[in-house]
């Protein structure tokens, strides 16, 4: 399979690889996928409680090159965004940015799910109502 330049770039030098303390109150952790499916993505965000913005993000991915690239890109994109803005990131944008072929669309879906899951984890930890957050996303859309 031929990979796009951008996939190769993220694959060869993945951005924001690493882990944060998952017990910290200002960290949200999302783990999606399953080993038997051949993919597991872990994405973590660190939120600045004063501004509500994501100030840092880290990932680790067990998956194909496209999954690694999608999660690497996702960490870049969430940084500096508010939670609502990050929730608005769509897998189709990842597909477009990385020129993913149809068989690799689900890798981008995983990345979107990982962002959402990390944000929900943060919201739950901090007693924030994430249904409300999702609703606001929909009204914006």
């Amino acid at each position, binding site marked *: 399979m031929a990979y796009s330049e951008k996939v190769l770039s993220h694959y060869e030098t993945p951005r924001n690889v690493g882990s944060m303390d998952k017990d910290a109150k200002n960290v949200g952790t999302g783990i999606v996928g399953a*080993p*038997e499916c*051949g993919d597991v993505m872990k994405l973590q965000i660190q939120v600045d409680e004063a501004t509500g913005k994501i100030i840092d993000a880290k990932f*680790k991915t*067990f*998956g194909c*090159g496209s999954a*690694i690239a999608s999660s690497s890109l996702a960490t870049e994109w969430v940084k500096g965004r508010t939670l609502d803005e990050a929730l608005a990131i769509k897998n189709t944008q990842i597909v477009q940015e990385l020129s993913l072929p149809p068989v690799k669309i689900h890798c981008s879906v995983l990345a979107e799910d990982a962002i959402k899951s990390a944000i929900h984890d943060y919201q739950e930890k901090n007693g924030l109502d994430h249904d409300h957050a999702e609703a606001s996303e929909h009204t914006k859309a």
Partner: protein
Amino acid sequence: MALKLPIYMDHNATTPVDPRVLEAMLPYFTEKFANSASRNHEFGWEAEDGVKLARKQVGDLIGADPKEVIWTSGSTESNNLAIKGVADMYKDKGRHIITAVHEHKATLDPCKRLAKMGYDVTWLEPGPDGIIYAKQVAEAIREDTILVSIMWANNEIGTINELPQIGKVCKEKGVLLHTDATQAVGKIPVDVNEAGIDLLSGSAHKIYGPKGAGFLYVRRRKPRVRLTPIIDGGGHERGMRSGTLNVTGIVGLGKACELCRLEMVEETARLSGLRDRLEKGITSQLEHAVVNGHLTKRLPHTTNISFPYVEGESMMMAIKEIAVSSGSACTSASLEPSYVLKALGLGDEIAHSSIRFGLGRITTEQEVDYTIEKVVTAVKKLLDLSPLYEMVLEGIDINAIEWGAH
């Protein structure tokens, strides 16, 4: 000598044609172009001579009489002819067939088709060593068993089934034994009489011959095996496989067999040395890497190594200048984990990241060393990226986690 990239390490998939084989074939395209069945002119005799020599060369390699060699287009056809041909010919005697779950698709699918047609198929399962033992076969044989089809050596992990013993069991019980020896012929000693084989499939392109040429050995004495042909026509090959012979391919196949026979001892020593070097180089630097299947009862040139917590496709991407074969990648990309490795009982996350290295006549020590370095670097990098490995390091049992469906 400078290392040339990419490196070919997929000799179980196919092999390059040996220049000596090509040289033997060339005249049969041009000057000696005739139909080997043209009995009434010199052109025909010349082509027939080439085919005759090839029959002898194949026979010499597997301990068979030249007359017992039936030309086919390759092992897929040979397996089909053997399995379907016996099933139909002996259907009044019984309708039970025994094979194994980790055979090549060219055996599995003909058996599945027969099962749909009302035959009863027993699928033997290997243990973690990948080997089918004679005891399993003996226990599965029934009154109505007409055929046992067990491969000589496995194409994914290179393990060698308990063959002379399986042959003995089949002889004792009077059941025909077919073996798909595609990966074994020319690589390790194969003798149809010693191993009690009644039908044996082989293919030229796995032994430095051309693609599209193969053979089926069909025993003529004790017992005389009969087959219902799949391809009817001019009655070539004792009526078992009609069609004008692929003379060039057959000549190449014959020459390829001759070279394998003459060079086997030396080549086996060289390749198993290189294979061991590769394995040691990798497993000594990567503590989690495991070699799949039996460690001694296997082909000299093949190793299948699993890299737990690393995913197969990303691994292939990291070592893209080395041509190898990967068990699988993510199921969602419609690449399934290898059914052969699953048959050995490997967990999914391990079956997902296995690589088959197939060394061959063109493989050099320098290539092996380069491969070791690349693989080790790639796996270390991917382990750093792996959330599963991180969990393992933290002491979390990843099999105990309830993973979400997706």
